[in-house]
């Protein structure tokens, strides 16, 4: 049997089985889901190859699935992280309601992602895209936070994106009479300028929604934060990457065939949007007090980098973007698992109330530490290499303003990274969390694997360069030469990662040793009250931990930027629309006579304008 089909069927079957097996035992449902994803992953890594083509004739369409270097790398990412997340999910979701429902949608999301990656034609791409959308919607509303409003918002934006894609692909078909992605790639240059502009805009909108580019990002923070964490691990880490996947196809493979000016404008605009997204989202992340929200905004910021890289579109930038995409999937997946673990053990994710879990949950802390290091882009972990490449590509492609923005946001990222670690794991111990224990092994394991991967890829980025290079040559970027620590090409996009890493690592180690020696024996334990209060005596119930108003000055500094959320305008727009609709529907007055009157009016209109209407 064809292994691509097999993967989809395993996941689909796993979804259904998971739903059914909930009747037997809720735990079994999660285990079934995990087993399905694991076996799909095994099939993917050991059986799947790029020779296989699946052709399914449905309706009047032929759905074609296949695997290529570009989709393989995303597929590998999805399979690994989904396996980890589903393993994590077994205990994380234990004891919750409607596990069948959850696991059904969990598996369907994974299946949809694999389907998107396999798709060689737009119809199956769209089908899986939409399955991904609704299955994730059903999980967002699963927790039932905020009266389902966030689910609706997610659905609206996804629909805007999805329908933009649908419109684009039917227009494409009317132009080239084919749904194949490769046909679009090859014939795009032949389209008229307007058509190129239209299609470009539509496709970019479609992918922009999923990868949360401003101004289409407003759904993301709450959607990420409100889903169960084991799902957010793949929601934020992987689902958003499908947008990146699409961007890769559009920006690199399709647009590179066009010489039209509008496309360059699109790229520049997109790069700017992405940069602004990353700055603003980082600012938001900094002022969050809830760990989930913090990570959610951080995700948006990181996606901004990735999109920026793709939009710049030089070899190095694309490489950086893809590398960052993989890294982001791993560390953000791990971090959401960490938050999930904390949430599971303490019941809250509010960083002002948490603290000092380092001693209670050491393994979790360890995973969190490594991931945060990667996130902040500190060597030697994976995040650093990606960021370095991105900066260098920005410089070499003369995007100096963008690099200022990128630096700004990555500097600000240190702030929230630190707050995350400090708020949850360091600081004062709270009474209510005295009896908190480390999470079970099946939850620790995926987090540790995630961190391990970060270390490996950070130290040996070359492991990833190999598949990335072939992915890029598939996208039409030409050859990229690489070795374990070196990335170079003919135009001087040349980065020797190992040198940089080594020097930074040495500095870090030296500083660490120095600080360690200096501070030895000076550790002292303090109580909650032991803080500077300027003569005022705090009352018992006043929370004065550091975690409260952690970045007050910073918040004050960025206040003007934060004043109006994009969300606000969307909500106003939505309310305005609904009021308008409410006004419109008053034509249905409820009086039968009025309806009869309409009929006569309509008849008279037809009579009077019959010449204009029917000739």
């Amino acid at each position: 049997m064809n292994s691509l089909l097999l993967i989809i069927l395993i996941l689909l079957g796993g979804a259904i089985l998971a739903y059914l097996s909930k009747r037997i035992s809720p735990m079994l449902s999660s285990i079934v889901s995990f087993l399905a994803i694991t076996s799909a992953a095994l099939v993917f890594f050991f059986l799947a190859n790029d020779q296989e083509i699946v052709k399914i004739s449905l309706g009047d369409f032929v759905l074609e699935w296949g695997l290529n270097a570009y989709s393989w790398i995303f597929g590998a990412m999805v399979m690994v992280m989904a396996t980890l997340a589903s393993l994590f999910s077994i205990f994380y979701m234990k004891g919750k309601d409607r596990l069948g429902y959850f696991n059904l949608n969990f598996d369907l999301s994974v299946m949809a992602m694999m389907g998107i990656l396999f798709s060689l034609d737009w119809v199956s791409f769209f089908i899986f895209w939409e399955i991904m959308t609704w299955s994730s919607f059903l999980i967002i509303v699963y927790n039932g936070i905020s009266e389902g409003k966030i689910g609706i918002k997610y659905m609206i934006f996804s629909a805007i994106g999805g329908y933009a894609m649908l419109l684009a692909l039917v227009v494409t078909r009317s132009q080239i009479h084919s749904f194949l992605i490769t046909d679009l790639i090859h014939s795009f240059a032949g389209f008229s300028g307007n058509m190129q502009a239209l299609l470009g805009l539509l496709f970019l909108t479609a992918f922009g929604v999923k990868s949360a580019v401003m101004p289409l990002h407003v759904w993301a923070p709450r959607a990420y934060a409100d889903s169960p964490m084991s799902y957010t691990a793949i929601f934020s880490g992987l689902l958003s990457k499908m947008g990146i996947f699409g961007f890769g196809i559009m920006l690199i493979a399709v647009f590179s065939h066009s010489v039209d000016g509008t496309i360059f404008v699109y790229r520049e605009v997109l790069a700017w949007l992405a940069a602004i997204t990353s700055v603003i989202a980082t600012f938001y992340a900094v002022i969050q007090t809830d760990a989930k929200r913090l990570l959610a905004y951080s995700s948006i910021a990181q996606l901004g980098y990735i999109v920026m890289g793709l939009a710049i579109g030089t070899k190095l930038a694309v490489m950086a973007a893809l590398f960052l995409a993989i890294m982001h999937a791993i560390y953000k997946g791990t971090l959401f698992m960490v938050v999930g673990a904390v949430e599971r053990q303490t019941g809250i994710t509010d960083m002002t109330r948490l603290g000092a879990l380092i001693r209670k949950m050491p393994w979790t802390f360890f995973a969190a530490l490594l991931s945060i290091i990667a996130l902040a882009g500190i060597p030697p972990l994976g995040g650093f290499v990606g960021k370095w490449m991105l900066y260098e590509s920005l410089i070499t492609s003369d995007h100096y303003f963008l690099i200022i923005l990128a630096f700004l946001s990555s500097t600000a990222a240190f702030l929230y990274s630190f707050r995350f670690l400090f708020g949850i794991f360091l600081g004062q111990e709270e009474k209510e969390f005295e009896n908190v224990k480390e999470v079970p092994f099946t939850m620790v394991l995926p987090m540790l694997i995630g961190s391990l991967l970060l270390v490996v890829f950070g130290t040996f980025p070359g492991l990833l360069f190999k598949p990335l290079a072939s992915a890029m040559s598939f996208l039409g970027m030409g050859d990229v030469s690489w070795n374990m620590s070196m990335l170079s090409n003919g135009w001087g996009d040349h980065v020797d990662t190992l040198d940089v890493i080594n020097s930074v690592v040495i500095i870090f180690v030296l500083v660490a040793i120095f600080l360690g020696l200096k501070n030895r024996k000076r550790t002292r334990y303090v109580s909650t009250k032991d803080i500077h209060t300027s003569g005022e005596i705090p009352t018992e119930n006043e929370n004065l931990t550091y975690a409260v108003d952690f970045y007050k000055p910073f918040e004050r500094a960025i206040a003007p930027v934060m004043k109006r959320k994009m969300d606000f305008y969307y909500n106003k727009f939505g309310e305005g629309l609904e009021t308008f609709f409410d006004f419109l529907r008053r034509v249905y007055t409820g009086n039968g006579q009025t309806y009869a009157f309409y009929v006569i009016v309509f008849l008279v209109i037809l009579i009077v304008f019959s010449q204009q209407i029917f000739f």
Partner: protein
Amino acid sequence: MVISPVHYIAVPLLAAFLMPLLAKIHRELTRIVPGLVILYLGYVSVVLMNQVMAHGTIVEVIAGWNAPWGINLVYSPFTGFLASMMTAMAFVIWLYSYRFKKVDSQPALKYFILFMMLVTGTIGIVLTGDIFNFFVFLEITAISSYSLTAFYRDRDGAEAAFKYLLIGSFASAFILIAILLLYTQVGTLNMAQIAVRMHDVPTHMKITILILFLVGLGIEAEMFPLNGWAPDAYSQAPSPVGVTFAALVVKAGVYGLIRIIFTLFDVHGAYEYLIVMGAITLVMAELAAIRQKSLKRMLAYSSIGQMGVVMIAFGIGTNEAVFGAIFLMFNHAVIKGLLFMSGSYLVYNTPNKEIQYLSGYGMKMPLISLFFSLGALAIVGLPPFAGFWSKLYILIAAADNQMIGLIALILGVSIVEIVYYFRVVGRLYFGKPSKGSIMQKPTYGGVIAMSLLAIVILVVGFYPDVITPYIHNAADALLDKAQYIHSVLPNADLSQIQNLK
């Protein structure tokens, strides 16, 4: 006895006349007999559809007078498909209503007689090849609809029914005047003959007649602004009847509209008219739907909106578009059926059938909620459910005709649709159930009915090829006017006939 299309009409009528007597024998017979009759019609459908697919259109002559002299039933791939679809839906609705509400045997008898006649009327509309006979069946449908809308006394059914009757009477008046004028011009009532002779009718008369038909049938097809009655009737009728309206009655209305435009007349402007009116209907209905508090009313508006899409697709008029339109008619029947059925169980005991009380029903009524969610996913056209394919076909057809603005409109309105459907779905699955709400346990018949529809949605969604060959033939049959005329009137002069698109 040879199976022939006339069984669709004769057998249910015979059974309807028999039922008052059967009720005297055993009261349960009043419930069972309609099911048996519809089941038999299902068998007839299977046999005839196979024949039609193999040998082409069947023309059933009535009273031994060949067309154009007598009345005839035309069982073409198109009409046959619709008739079979209606029969299947009627069977599902019968299952659903078998023990829907405990009522006395006397109203149960009347309910089932009216229901069976409603089914007969709609199938008759689709099958008949005679314009006045069409009118008669339209009236059978209308009168049984009025009565069924007002069936429950504890609702505002009578009000809805009166509005329906008021507007419906306008419809029949206009159609009757149109038939009258048409008769003076062509001297015949046979549709094929009319189509042949339409060429010689003076243009202004043609337009006059067309306008009257369009208004009259526009009412039946729930075209804006002629559809004021529809939301009331859908929401106040007993749930199975609401399903029947969505699955059968409005389909018959749309059928009438397109039969008039596609076969009888050769006026180009009518196609653009369909597109424009369809678009207006779609927009108005969906915008009204988003603000509804009552679930059934929301579903009703949504149903009207879908009819708008069907009209748009028919208006585009290419083979692909017509294919998409027929596909959408099928999907709409199945999906809206499922939504109405599950929705009415959800709001069974809530005050005013309002959506706001549905919080957390996903926990209490998992199966019904699942059905509803499935329907919601399917109706907004999300893959891999049935609704997706029809939408895709329609959009492709529109794109091939360079109607990008129209596609954008349909998709834009789809977003509105997503908002209100997913609001309900979100509400079903989140939050704490309000206290004191009493769940209504669905009947076995109801569960079977809904499961059947859900299975159809899934199967067609995953493998549309089970249904597409029939729809392809149906679309070809509808568009091939000359073939229609030829099969009814083998000796007709076809030189004046041209297929418009």
